[in-house]
């Protein structure tokens, strides 16, 4: 299971990649593994306002639905258009091909509440 060093993580198993005031969001390797084969991804549209801790979409496997929570507050700048047609990317490439949203970050202080790779790895080990 991978936990890339340069990412931040949430307790709901989303990852965050920060580039200046723009953050990219997806779900972690652990999350995709727990869900199994992903068959559907629902994401908001560009311009949608996401809020930290609130859901912005869902991922579905054959027999489970999981909400995706936004790690930060801000406006959606870009959405991964490939995901609805190729949801399997979430399984094969959770940290690259299956990025979900790029969000214009409102408040950088929100990032302080997220975990680094080590902290997330221990969090996951405890959950298991």
């Amino acid at each position, binding site marked *: 299971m991978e936990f890339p060093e340069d990412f931040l993580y949430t307790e709901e198993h989303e990852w965050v990649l920060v580039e200046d005031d723009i953050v990219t969001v997806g779900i972690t390797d652990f999350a995709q593994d727990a869900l199994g*084969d992903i*068959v*559907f991804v629902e994401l908001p549209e560009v311009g949608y306002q996401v809020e930290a801790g609130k859901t912005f979409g869902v991922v*579905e*496997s*054959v*027999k489970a639905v999981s909400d995706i929570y936004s790690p930060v507050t801000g406006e959606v700048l870009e959405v991964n258009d490939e995901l609805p047609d190729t*949801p*399997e990317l979430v399984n094969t490439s959770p940290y690259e091909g299956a990025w979900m949203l790029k969000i214009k970050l409102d408040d950088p202080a929100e990032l302080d509440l997220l975990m680094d790779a080590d902290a997330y790895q221990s969090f996951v080990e405890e959950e298991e």
Partner: protein
Amino acid sequence: MNRIGTSGLQLNEKLIFEHSDSGRCGYSLPKLDVPAVSLPEQMIRTEVAGFPEVSEIDVVRHYTRLSTWNYGVDSGFYPLGSCTMKYNPKVNEAAARIAGLADCHPYTPGHLSQGALELMFHLQTALAEISGFAAVTLQPAAGAHGELAGMLMVRAWHEAKGSRRSKVLIPDTAHGTNPATAALCGYDVVPIESGGSGVLTAETVAQFMNDDVAALMVTNPNTLGLFESDIKKICEIVHAGGGLVYCDGANLNALMGIARPGDMGIDVMHFNLHKTFSTPHGGGGPGSGPVGVAKKLIPYLPKPVVVQNKTEYKLDFDRPESIGRLRSFYGNFGIMVRAWAYILSMGSDGLKFASQMAVLNANYIRARLAAVYHLPHQHRSLHEVVFSDANLPNDCHTLDLAKRLIDYGYHPPTIYFPLVVKGAIMIEPTETESKEILDEFCDAMLAIAKEAAENPDLLHAAPTLTRVGRLDETAAARQPCLSWLPEGL
């Protein structure tokens, strides 16, 4: 000789559309004996594109062949937990097909449909007696539909008192329909944990009960097959807090003639005629989900209500406080006919004996398998028993066990439900199975446990004797193909 599955001759069969050839037909109509007329051109379609053109024998062979790919109660043991797959008596089918019942139109004037109304009145009276409720409506078309009727009545009762409660308590062992129904009635769901024993305690309910709680939804016996022995106290707590208790009656087959939900303090409960009262499941329906209510909820029953007026039966539409109607007409009458035939065939003693033997059968299976399969809850089981796959070795899981059972010639139990048991295997034998059948089934279960230890590939590759192997459900969901399209479209 046991009766495990073998591979026999299996006949392939394409889709009915693929049999089509222009010019064939499978019907006959009398010659038109009035002048033909037409509608304005812009209102008329040229044809129903894609409709098949097949002869009668094509249709007969097609569906006969399809039927052979199915497994029903008449094929063999079908211990699908929570679904009460008991034998479907054939005389019930004959009764439902009697012309005066099958061909009576719902808008036939009351004085010309007394037979149908009388039958409904008798059935609702009998269900009220069996369950201990003050009144019963037969209108809902299925269990979930009955839940909706029941919870709408709960809400109507609160609103009539000016109460605006917003929450419904639902234990984590509940069927998914319970929270879905509560949401449809505008309620927020508060899940409550049943805890390690598998039985809800009065203390837990007391903790969650407050003046924003409209109702508690329980299933009794619950989905673990256990009797909620605190039920009376639980009802008292909810009532004292100003709420009502809804009971999912899916498991009534354990209690007929033994105990009555209405006597336990429950305010409203749905029945499943297709479970407890032997009407066929029909490959998914039609069912019928009557609802029994305590006296205080009678004004809110869906309308119309069948009433007896001296010697006449009639439909009463004048019910100003009714929640309204949930469907057209009066319910799945054809299913009511079958259920009434069952009750009349069984009588009081027969129904009680059915529940006793259903519970005996479940406990017998439990006794035969508990040494090998993990039993997460220790309370005495009623009509069904829930094991888990915790003892299965070599990466063998509940799904593999289920598929391997198919190769042995059985319909698998309900799997992965209730959700509180990881890898749940929920077995409900019903009373219509003999000791001999149960022994063969238990032998198969034990043999599979042995295979899991010695040759797990047999489980992972199963089923191998069926027409199709394990199907790719992921592909089905990623690229849904929900209807046939002609080549080239």
